[in-house]
Each structure stands twice: as structure tokens, then as C-alpha cells.
């Protein structure tokens, strides 16, 4: 049997080689289908990986709690416009919910920062020291401030890469330098390691951190002492997030004395929620890709079936001769199936080459990150095999069922 299969494959290749133009046109559908899938999946995978990396920059198992929306006299403010969350809320949460590994809080405002003769308008964040650990910030030089700095409302600052680039000359060491925020001098004690864009597209490195107490008393001039812009929490395990969210909601509703019919005056988001939104987008993209791929593979398969039917008709006499000298139905069947699969596999291989080249070209020309996964290549190859087999079955069966006498007489 192996000699039979081997010779049949050789014969199939020879027949295809003889009708190169026809074989090429027949394979085109498969080539385009497979190439499109490979290229699109590579681009999609690259985008997904980039988004995942962005989400990872948020920290690990992070919960974010925003204050609710003000609705004074029917005029609704933007999210976070209400001053419903306070430092004591955050401390209480940590005390009452053991699932929370830590809680932190921030308030932010955009202000002018001056160093030497340069200035920059950047977001000033008054933070609790725990915020840095929750959000996984690390340092390229210097280090974080401490609880002591918070207690004493020390005038110390941590600055992000974007601030460094805009206020300092290249090569200049920012740690130890004194910058002025709203005319208050701050000593830079740490430079933050870069995080890049957030999942929402904002520059996470355009940031200055100062102790929350210092921000409250010396920079922002708050009317409600202790009110925060956002609270953060984190859990040890990602599975604990939903439970922690429920407990936070319960504690906050209790502290804010909300009746059962009243809505929350805060919003809780987790890293998983944000990830899901992104995943949803990429799932839609994947489904669309799948639809495109299915259609082109279907068209490619029909092309193969069509040309095989032509081939069966053209070679009716040959089939008759083969039957006369002793070919059984399965031999004839195999011959045409192998031809179909050779067509689809050669087409699939060409498609893979074209798809990988397309993905690489996209990276070079458009600068999009692409990831070519071995899985996709294997799946594409497998699918072209299946297409060949499926669409080859009908013509092969038609050939195998020919009556040898009529086939021999066919003109």
C-alpha cells in the first residue's frame, strides 16, 4: 500500500506540475484564506499581547474604587466628582476585610511644575505609600517615601520618566534636585521606572507622586479634609477579587448609610473587569477573522472540488483503463483524494509563507507588533488538509463509482 500511496502522490504532483496555471488558480482560494488567517491572527495576537502588557502595568489583582457621581439639582457631574470616599474609608476597609492585602488612596490635580528655567504641567498625585506597592511601581533611581514622610507631610516627590525628560537635561540626575510645585519646593527622592501607555491610552509616566498629607495641606487646598480621588486595594489571589469587591461594597454602603433602595455612591472596578473589556474587543475581532477565514476556505474548497470534477470528466477513459487493469474503488478514490489534498496542502503551505511574510511586513511598515504562533500555522495546515479531504470526497467518489465499460467507451 505504501508504494501505491507514494506513486499516487508523485502522480498527483506531476499532474499539478503539468497544469501549473490551473493548479495555481485552483489553489488561490486556499492560499488567500490561509494567508489572511495567519496574517490577521499574528496581528491580533500581537495587539492582544500589547494590551495584556498594558493591563499588567496596573499592578497585580488591583481593585479601584471611584467616588460616585454628583447629582445636584439634576446636574450630573463627571465620575469622581462627588467627595464620597475618604481616607478613613480606606483604612476601615483594610481593617474590616482580611481578603484585602493592602489599600491605598490618591488624589490628583494637574499643576505646573518648575525646575530651573523649565516648566511642565503634569498630574500631581497625593498618595499613600501603599499605593506604590499595589500598583507595582518600581524605581530606576532613588526610592519611595515612607509612612514617616506621610505623617510629617514631608515635601518629597517621586517623578515619572516623562517629567524627567521634560524638566531635566539628559544625563542630569534628578534625585536630590529641588522642583517647585505651585511654588512649594519639593526634593526629588526617586525616579519611577517607565510603564508606558495605560490600557486606556494615557501616558502613565507623566506623573508626580507626593505624600497625600503634603498634597492635602500644602498643594491642593482641600475643603474636605480626607476626601480622596480614588481608592485602591489588592488581594493575594485573583480568585478573591469578586468576593473582596462584594465585601467592599457592603462596608462602604454601611459607612455611607445607604438605604437598600439607594444606588452606590461609588464605583468599583477590578483589573479583571478592565481586562474583560479588552478581551471582548479581541474576541469580536477573532470571530470576524474566523468568519473571513471560513468563507475563503469554503470558496477555496469549492474551487478544488470544481477543478477535480473537471479532471474526473477529462480523465474518464484513464479511470476506465485503471479499472480494467484491476484498480478497485478505493484505489480510484485514493487517487483523487490525494490529488485534492496535494492541491490544498500546497495551497496551505503557500498561504502560510505568504501570511507570515504579510505579518512581518506589517510590523516593518506599520510598526504594529505581530506574534506568529506555531499553533496557528499547525491549525492552518490542518484546516487546508481537511478542506482538501472534504471537497475531494465528492469528485473522488464520483470517479470511483464510474462504470468501467462506459468509462472505457467515453470520448
Amino acid at each position: 500500500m505504501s508504494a501505491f500511496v507514494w506513486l499516487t502522490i508523485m502522480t498527483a504532483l506531476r499532474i499539478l506540475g503539468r497544469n501549473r496555471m490551473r493548479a495555481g488558480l485552483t489553489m488561490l482560494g486556499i492560499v488567500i484564506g490561509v494567508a489572511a488567517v495567519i496574517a490577521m491572527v499574528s496581528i491580533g495576537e500581537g495587539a492582544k499581547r500589547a494590551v495584556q502588557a498594558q493591563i499588567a502595568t496596573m499592578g497585580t489583582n488591583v481593585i479601584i474604587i471611584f467616588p460616585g457621581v454628583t447629582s445636584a439639582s439634576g446636574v450630573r457631574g463627571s465620575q469622581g466628582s462627588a467627595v464620597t470616599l475618604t481616607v478613613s474609608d480606606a483604612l476601615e476597609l483594610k481593617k474590616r476585610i482580611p481578603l484585602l492585602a493592602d489599600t491605598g488612596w490618591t488624589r490628583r490635580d494637574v499643576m505646573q511644575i518648575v525646575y530651573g528655567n523649565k516648566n511642565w504641567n503634569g498630574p500631581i498625585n497625593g498618595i499613600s505609600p501603599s499605593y506604590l506597592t499595589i500598583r507595582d511601581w518600581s524605581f530606576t533611581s532613588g526610592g519611595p517615601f515612607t509612612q514617616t514622610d506621610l505623617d510629617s507631610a514631608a515635601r518629597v516627590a517621586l517623578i515619572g520618566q516623562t517629567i524627567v525628560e521634560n524638566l531635566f537635561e539628559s544625563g542630569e540626575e534628578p534625585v536630590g534636585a529641588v522642583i517647585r510645585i505651585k511654588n512649594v519646593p519639593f526634593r526629588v527622592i526617586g525616579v519611577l521606572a517607565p510603564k508606558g501607555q495605560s490600557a486606556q491610552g494615557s501616558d502613565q509616566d507623566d506623573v508626580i507622586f507626593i505624600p497625600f498629607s503634603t498634597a492635602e495641606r500644602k498643594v491642593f487646598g482641600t475643603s474636605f479634609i480626607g476626601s480622596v480621588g480614588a481608592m485602591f486595594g489588592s488581594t493575594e489571589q485573583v480568585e478573591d477579587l469578586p468576593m473582596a469587591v462584594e465585601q467592599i461594597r457592603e462596608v462602604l454602603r454601611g459607612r455611607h448609610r445607604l438605604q437598600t433602595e439607594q444606588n452606590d455612591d461609588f464605583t468599583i472596578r477590578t483589573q479583571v473587569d478592565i481586562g474583560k473589556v479588552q478581551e471582548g474587543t479581541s474576541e469580536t475581532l477573532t470571530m470576524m477573522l474566523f468568519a473571513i477565514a471560513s468563507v475563503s476556505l469554503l470558496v477555496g474548497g469549492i474551487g478544488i472540488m470544481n477543478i477535480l470534477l473537471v479532471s474526473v470528466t477529462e480523465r474518464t477513459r484513464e479511470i476506465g483503463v485503471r479499472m480494467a487493469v484491476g484498480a478497485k474503488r478505493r484505489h480510484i478514490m485514493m487517487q483523487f483524494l490525494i490529488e485534492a489534498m496535494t492541491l490544498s496542502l500546497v495551497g496551505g503551505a503557500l498561504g502560510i509563507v505568504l501570511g507570515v511574510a504579510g505579518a512581518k511586513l506589517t510590523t516593518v511598515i506599520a510598526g504594529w507588533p505581530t506574534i506568529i504562533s506555531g499553533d496557528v500555522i499547525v491549525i492552518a495546515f490542518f484546516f487546508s488538509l481537511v478542506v482538501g479531504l472534504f471537497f475531494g470526497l465528492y469528485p473522488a467518489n464520483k470517479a470511483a463509482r464510474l462504470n468501467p465499460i462506459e468509462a472505457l467507451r467515453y470520448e
Partner: protein
Amino acid sequence: MSPLIECEDVWKIYQVGDVEVQALRGLSLTIEQGEFVAIMGSSGSGKSTLMNILGCLDQPTKGHYRLNGVEVGGLRPDDLAGIRNQQIGFVFQSFNLIPRTSALENAQLPLFYRGLSIKEQRTQAAAALGRVGLHGREDHYPTQLSGGQQQRVAIARALVTSPSLLLADEPTGNLDTQSSREIMAILEALNRDEGITIILVTHEVDVAAYAAREIVIKDGQILSDRRTKARPPSSPVEG
């Protein structure tokens, strides 16, 4: 030893629309091993139908056909294919070589379906081509060969399996006189020297003259069956 071919009251009835066509009507025929038989008859006489049945391409509607003592009627198509592959060699009027395929590969074809190794297929096919005088033409394609040479490739293809029966359907019908003589000489030699049973269908009297027995078919029945040469039905050399 049973005769090679035993036909007993063989009927072949086709249904063409509402009309019933009786191609063979209760034909009985016995052919011994080693005979050289010519079957003659006008077109529509049923001789092609008989050839198809003898060649196991078709089966009788009624009656019995035993080849080497084995009842062929009622066998499945794949079993018939197996019998054709093992016992029968075909030579057609229009050669029926596979186009754009070398002489060697054409001669290999029956062995291909026997599942022999590629090497064995090549060796045996080359030997068969040598027997019909085509040594050195193994790599030629049908278009590069004359009609007579193409028919010799077809004979090699029929011989390569060492069949007990060789069916030649108008083997010289598409050939000039010179090539016809060469082909008939080869067939005659195969019958005489190797004892291969040959059944030949032809219109031409001088072609039929090579055979030792002449059967004339008319309206699906045997009109006449006579020995034209005094030769023993069983050749001394077994094929």
C-alpha cells in the same frame, strides 16, 4: 482440469427506457486453456457484450459464467477488479494508454494495483516491454511512439501480470497493415510459445485467420463455431 471459460445459457438484458434489449440470448460457450479464438460478428451482434462479460467488466443478467472454475456472476465490483488484475489482460482498439505517462509506467499499471514494491514493478514492466520488442523505449511517452509501438506497450501492460486470459478487442483496428501484422505475430507467438489463451474480436477475416477457432455471433447467439486450424486445444507449454 476445468475449462478456462465456461458460459452456460448466458443472458444479458439491458433496460433502455421502456424497451428491453436482449444483447445476449442464452449463449453457451466453452474455451479451453491455451486456445486462440477469434470472435466475429457485425456491430450490434452482442460480441462486445460478450467480451465485457468474459473480461469480468460486466456480469450476466441470467446464466453462469465460470472463469477457471470460479462463478463470476454475483461477485462485487471490487472482487471483479481483483480477478481482472490477477487473471485477465486487455488490449483495446484505441490502445488506451495513459497519456503523458512513460511506456514503462503504463506497463507498470496493473502491478501498481497489486501493491508490489516500486522496484519489482519496474523490473517486471521492463521485462514485459522487452518481450514485445520495446527494449530501450521505456521512457518514451505515448505521443513519441507509433501506433504499432503504442499497441505493443498495451500488450506489455496486459502481459505483465502473466494472465491466464488475454482479451484483444479489435487490436489492429487503428493500425496500418504492416503494424497489424507485427501485432498479430506477437499475439500468435504468445499463444504458441507461452500457452496464453487469447480471445480476439475482429471484423477482418485475415486477422481472424491467425486464430485456431472462429466463433461468429449474431443476435446474441452463436451462429457458428468452427476450428480453422488443427491444433490441440491445450498447448503443451503452460503459461
